[in-house]
């Protein structure tokens, strides 16, 4: 007998429905799975058979064929287990067959029949709205992720027996409901605050500007100067996430399967700090079954690259596309998928190989040639995408105690939010521009008008301070953000003067 059930799978960060067809007929006992299954899907027969038997159902030793349609897309993972098991029960007459078409079923089976978590529940729940189903059956641990989607009935289940009882009408169960706004608000707290950082007023100010304009920032400082500490707190001063942003970000994390056990929505801006040994694929996304990489997991948040110079050359070069487009396109022979990746890049590095160049506590032991070689590991094109570079000095121990702590994150965030509001109305008509950092040359020409005094200042800075002309556009962008923070109508020379201060690497202090 034949049974047809519904399940779902992920391509990119979107889901598509998979029909799970199970056919059981008399013949030589066998179990075949077709429809381009991968190893995990093929192995599901062992889990399914054990789970069926251990849940007290009958498994008839007959000829079983499982087809996962559409048959030409590769299927991966163990999320079809539950659907296959139900299909077999229906095909062997232990469950009404027509009921299966009314639910979208997800879940990996354990040998004892309990249901394990799966990846990508959120995009699947979103996609299920387009199907004519009454609801989706998900593993208990994934219930919150699924329930944040409006207008979908979510039925969380613990084990196979519970599912069968529910489907055959032996047990009543209402859909699981979640107050999305409540859940969203609950997840918005950061554990960190800028008030924890002592001293470093200059660096903090630069961080505020970076946050206000969405600018990428590079911190250069000796070991132990607090670069990581500053970077970790950057998300706390970025504008609060909107529900839409939160859904986007949660969707990507759901595909990876990180959301397990945590609140159903990611309400805080993600902070991703991959180690410098990371491979290109892990950073950017990809693989034979494409997965989002760190850049996409940092979507709407911060990607922090500590020890920037230690990252492989290739890894830094692949960063250029997402920095430019805010998305990653992974093209493979069979498919191509696109992952959103709009993040703020925060990078940190030492000023030289030994780490103490320009440090007042300790003398640097590097030769000029080594320092130069070290600096040249970051390519020009990457540096061109970083608007601010600042030096973060080491704070002396005795200063740590009497340093002022300054403002807390909330106060700074309010200013940042105001500046962002100005930018929002400025770029209302432009597509794909949300903040000053995304401006292209023509936008800079339009929005960054400077007066004569300003032009003179820039000219002086280029002539006298050795500021490279390459810095020109970046300085204009950053000045606009400084003006926005101040609520000023246009850029004046004090804005420019401050902006130039955040171009350490252009001032050719490094020999």
């Amino acid at each position, binding site marked *: 007998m034949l049974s047809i059930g519904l399940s779902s799978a992920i391509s990119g960060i979107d889901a598509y429905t998979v029909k799970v067809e199970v056919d059981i007929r008399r013949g030589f006992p066998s179990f075949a799975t077709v429809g381009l299954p991968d190893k995990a899907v093929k192995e599901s027969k062992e889990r399914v058979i054990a789970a069926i038997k251990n849940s007290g159902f009958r498994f008839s030793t007959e000829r079983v064929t499982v087809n996962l349609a559409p048959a030409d897309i590769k299927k991966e993972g163990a999320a079809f287990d539950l659907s296959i098991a139900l299909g077999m029960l229906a095909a062997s007459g232990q469950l009404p067959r027509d009921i299966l078409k009314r639910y979208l079923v997800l879940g990996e089976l354990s040998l004892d029949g309990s249901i394990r978590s799966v990846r990508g529940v959120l995009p699947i729940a979103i996609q299920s709205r387009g199907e004519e189903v009454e609801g989706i059956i998900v593993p208990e641990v994934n219930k919150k992720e699924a329930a944040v989607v409006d207008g979908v009935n979510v039925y969380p289940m613990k084990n196979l027996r519970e599912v069968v009882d529910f489907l055959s009408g032996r047990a009543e169960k209402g859909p699981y409901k979640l107050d999305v706004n409540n859940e969203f608000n609950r997840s918005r707290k950061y554990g960190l605050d800028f008030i924890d950082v002592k001293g470093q*007023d*200059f660096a903090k100010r630069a961080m505020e500007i970076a946050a206000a304009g969405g600018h990428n920032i590079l911190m250069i400082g000796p070991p132990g100067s607090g670069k990581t500490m500053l970077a970790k707190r950057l998300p706390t001063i970025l504008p609060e996430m909107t529900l839409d942003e939160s859904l986007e970000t949660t969707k990507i994390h759901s595909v990876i399967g990180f959301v397990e056990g945590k609140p159903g929505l990611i309400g805080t801006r993600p902070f991703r700090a991959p180690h410098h040994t990371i491979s290109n694929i892990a950073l950017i996304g990809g693989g034979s079954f494409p997965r989002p990489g760190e850049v996409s997991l940092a979507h709407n948040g911060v990607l922090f690259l500590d020890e920037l110079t230690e990252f492989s050359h290739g890894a830094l070069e692949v960063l250029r596309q997402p920095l430019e487009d805010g998305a990653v396109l992974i093209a493979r022979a069979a498919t191509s998928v696109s992952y959103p990746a709009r993040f703020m890049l925060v990078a940190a590095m030492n000023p030289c190989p030994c780490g103490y160049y320009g*440090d007042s506590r300790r003398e640097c032991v590097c030769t000029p040639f080594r320092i130069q070689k070290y600096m040249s590991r970051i390519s020009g094109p990457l540096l061109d995408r970083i608007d601010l570079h600042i030096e973060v000095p080491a704070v002396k121990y005795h200063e740590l105690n009497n340093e*002022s702590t300054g403002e807390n994150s909330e106060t700074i965030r309010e200013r940042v939010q105001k500046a962002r509001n100005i930018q929002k109305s400025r770029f209302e008509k432009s597509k794909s521009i949300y903040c000053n950092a995304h401006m292209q040359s023509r936008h800079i020409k339009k929005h960054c008008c400077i007066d004569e005094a300003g032009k003179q200042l820039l000219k002086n800075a280029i002539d*006298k301070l050795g500021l490279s002309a390459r810095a020109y556009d970046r300085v204009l962008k950053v000045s606009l953000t400084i003006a926005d923070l101040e609520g000023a109508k246009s850029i004046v020379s*004090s804005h420019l*003067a401050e902006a130039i201060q955040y171009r350490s690497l252009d001032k050719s*202090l490094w020999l």
Partner: protein
Amino acid sequence: MDEITGDLLKLSLINDLGAVRLNNLLEYFGTTRNILQAKEDELRRIPGIGKKLSSQISSLNSGINIEKEIEKLERDGISVVTVYDKNYPVNLKSIYDSPFILYVKGEIIPEDAYAVSVVGTRRATSYGRTAAERISTDLAKRNVTIVSGLARGIDTIAHQSALACGGRTIAVLGSGLGVCYPPENKRLFERITHNGAVISEFPLMAGPEKRNFPMRNRIISGLGLGTVVVEAPARSGALITADAALEQGREVFAVPGSVFSENSTGTHLLIKQGAKLVEDYKDIIEEIDSLGRMVLQKDNAVHEVDDEELTGVEEKIYSLLSLEPVQIDSISRKTELPVKDVSIILMGLEVKGRIREVPGKRYIRRV
């Protein structure tokens, strides 16, 4: 180009034939022409001329197209000055192993006799940079030509400071003039050729061989009436230059540094051995009479450029700064001004040329 110059040019193409051995040859043969026409076994009678050298010398007549070489030099704007020429630097002529031939890009003028050599470590600290800048600027402003070696660190600062105040400077290379070493000083190289000269005794395309540098150092010290060492660790090329200066009977000066810094070991050693301790340019001109007279004449003519007026807050911040670097956060703390205002004011002061940023977002006064 006359015959002697051409002959010397040929002879200079031989790597191992230095000034001393060439001198020996000239004493024996009288003229360069005779050397080139001599038989190998005759050449070998001269002390220091072995089988290899003698065959290299006698093969010069046939193998090398000197016209082509000269053409190439002319195309690059390089002139050749021999020890027999009138415009050969006087200071250099009086040393015992003065190079017979100099490749010159730029121009050496008679006034370049008033020269002081400024040398030091390639790994200069901001203290050393400031000291080198101050001394070089003060001397160059008073028409003293600054001689150095175009190396990284102190050398670069010495050349740059001289150029920045409109003075003259001479760079002596340890490679041929066709090779700029270190490569990042390419622009500085060009600028020097317009306000002084870049010179070398090595053939056009000779690389920066390790053994060239001690030879180059004797020219640096030989061109100057005195040699100032700013920051040198215990084993340093700058000390070789100082030794050469002593051998040549020139003055040696040393700028003291911190006793905790490795970069002071060499300079302090010199002071212990009797080199004059230098704080500013006056200590130098005091010691060298001819220089002193020249500077005194000119000093009346030098009119200091009036510094731009500083505003109240600018003055407040400027007064906090010294030659010891101060970090921007601590300026902000001491003045109780928000850091963004401080950074705007610092930028203003920097553009006015009163202060300078050093690595670590720190600031010092300019001298």
